[in-house]
């Protein structure tokens, strides 16, 4: 269990993390979403006791992370897959940590098998690893103490689609055994298939959080038609807001039935009408995070 309360981090005059509060419960995977530089990594470092917060608190398994006697046995941490000594072999990286934690050396072979690093790959130095291999090594490293909680910063970064599917199964299985997972990403696609809950952060502040269904509930339906302009006018005059959904689709903040009635009254042919699941979440994510890009363009 992770409980972040009113957590803040100030660098000079800039608030990297600004008074954020969220919880990660056992049995769930929480996706921590936001554009680069939104404060995700800083938050995760504060949870793991590596960065002192300017305010608020982060509680892991009932207390501050740094109060855990042998934290690697209870919390698996992957903050940066590239933060390993380039001159050390993958197997050696795991062996060192197995020794620190006090787990038997046989754990190392088990973990290498689990994450799909071959014996030959494990003998290579980390400097020769691809980013995907480093992520697999990093996940093995996080799992070595068989923890109850996982904190993973951008773990899908550099993984191929097959690797992402593998990680989804791994984390789903971990959560189903009452584990708690917090994983971050700047890409919605990576997280939406894995996470039960989402915490969306922008410029240090949480802009949305909840279950996937909750976040989607507010975003209405996707509709396609032979005559998008006519439908948009008809919906607008009926007092229903629309936004372009890409590829000729419209995102409508209304029930499917209401949209259908408007279309029927105007004699407009609909080719598609459905709840805005993934697409809606993407719109949401983009709209929540868009002003960052605008700010950086102005700056």
């Amino acid at each position: 269990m992770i409980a972040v309360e009113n957590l803040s981090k100030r660098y000079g005059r800039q608030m990297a993390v600004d008074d954020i509060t969220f919880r990660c419960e056992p049995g769930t995977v929480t996706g921590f979403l936001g554009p680069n530089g939104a404060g995700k990594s800083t938050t995760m470092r504060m949870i793991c006791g590596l960065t002192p917060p300017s305010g608020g608190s982060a509680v892991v398994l009932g207390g501050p992370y740094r109060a855990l006697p042998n934290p690697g046995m209870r919390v698996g941490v992957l903050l940066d897959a590239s933060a390993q000594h380039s001159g050390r072999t993958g197997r050696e990286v795991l062996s060192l940590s197995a020794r620190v934690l006090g787990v038997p050396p046989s754990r190392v072979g088990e973990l290498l098998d689990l994450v799909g690093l071959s014996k030959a790959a494990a003998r290579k130095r980390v400097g020769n690893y691809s980013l995907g291999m480093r992520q697999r090594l990093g996940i093995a490293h996080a799992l070595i103490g068989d923890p109850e909680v996982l904190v993973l910063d951008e773990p899908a970064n550099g993984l191929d689609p097959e690797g992402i599917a593998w990680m989804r199964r791994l984390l789903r299985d971990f959560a189903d055994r009452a584990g708690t997972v917090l994983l971050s990403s700047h890409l919605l696609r990576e997280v939406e298939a894995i996470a039960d809950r989402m915490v969306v952060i922008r410029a240090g502040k949480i802009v949305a959080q909840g279950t996937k269904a909750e976040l989607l509930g507010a975003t209405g339906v996707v509709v396609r038609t032979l005559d998008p302009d006519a439908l948009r006018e008809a919906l607008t005059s009926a007092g229903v807001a629309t936004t372009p959904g890409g590829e000729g689709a419209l995102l409508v903040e209304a029930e499917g039935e209401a949209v259908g009635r408007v279309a029927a009254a105007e004699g407009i042919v609909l080719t598609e009408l459905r709840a805005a699941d993934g697409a809606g979440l993407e719109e949401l994510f983009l709209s929540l995070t868009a002003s960052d890009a605008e700010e950086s363009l102005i700056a």
Partner: protein
Amino acid sequence: MTAYAETAPRLALSRPGIGRLASVELRKMADTRAGFWLLLTIGLLIAAITVIVVIWGETADQNLAGIFGDTIEITSVLLPVLGILSVTSEWSQRTGLATFSLVPERERVIAAKVVAAVALTVIAVAVCLLAAVVGNVFAGGSWSLGLGDIGRGLVYELIGVLVGVAFGLLFLSSPLAIVLYFVLPTAWAILGSISALEGPAEWLDLSVTMAPLVEASMSGREWAQLGTSVALWVWALLAIGIVRLQRSELK
């Protein structure tokens, strides 16, 4: 389940001891490419200097004490670099993220590094002694070498390595710490030529205070001077470094 799973709850409640952490730190000094080649180079230099002294050395050096002293001297050049890298690689290679996640009590990691550096130095001095014994079999010189001589050789090496660890912790950068480690004695030599600084240099300049260690004996005053300079360059720097480390952010 495996036997490991049964012991896991117990492991979760017991923090790793300094001995175990030190053995990990010792292994980390040797298990990287840089560490391996540095250790091999030190070994080869010890062998090379032994051969050189035995074949071409001055007669005064061709005995157990002489060869031992020369191997100690050559070892003391590179061993401190291992002490520096032991600390700085946690930042330059960013392994500190993992290291300090697993052991949040950061001062214990540094203590383990100090213990590991001491252990490595003891091993290095033992290798020097072994080389001197083998060398003297061929040189056929005197076998007299007191425990005091070995002890002073060990202290000489230890100070160098610990200054290395302290410099590493102070600068957190491999190139900066290594350069300053080697430049410092020269800086003192220049400063020491200023007459007003001669007095302080006798107590604070390690190259001055360590010089009597390679002589046959040391007076009480010389030990006091050595102790003062070590207190500054090792213990004070380590203390500053640890206090700063505990408050700092690891990225």
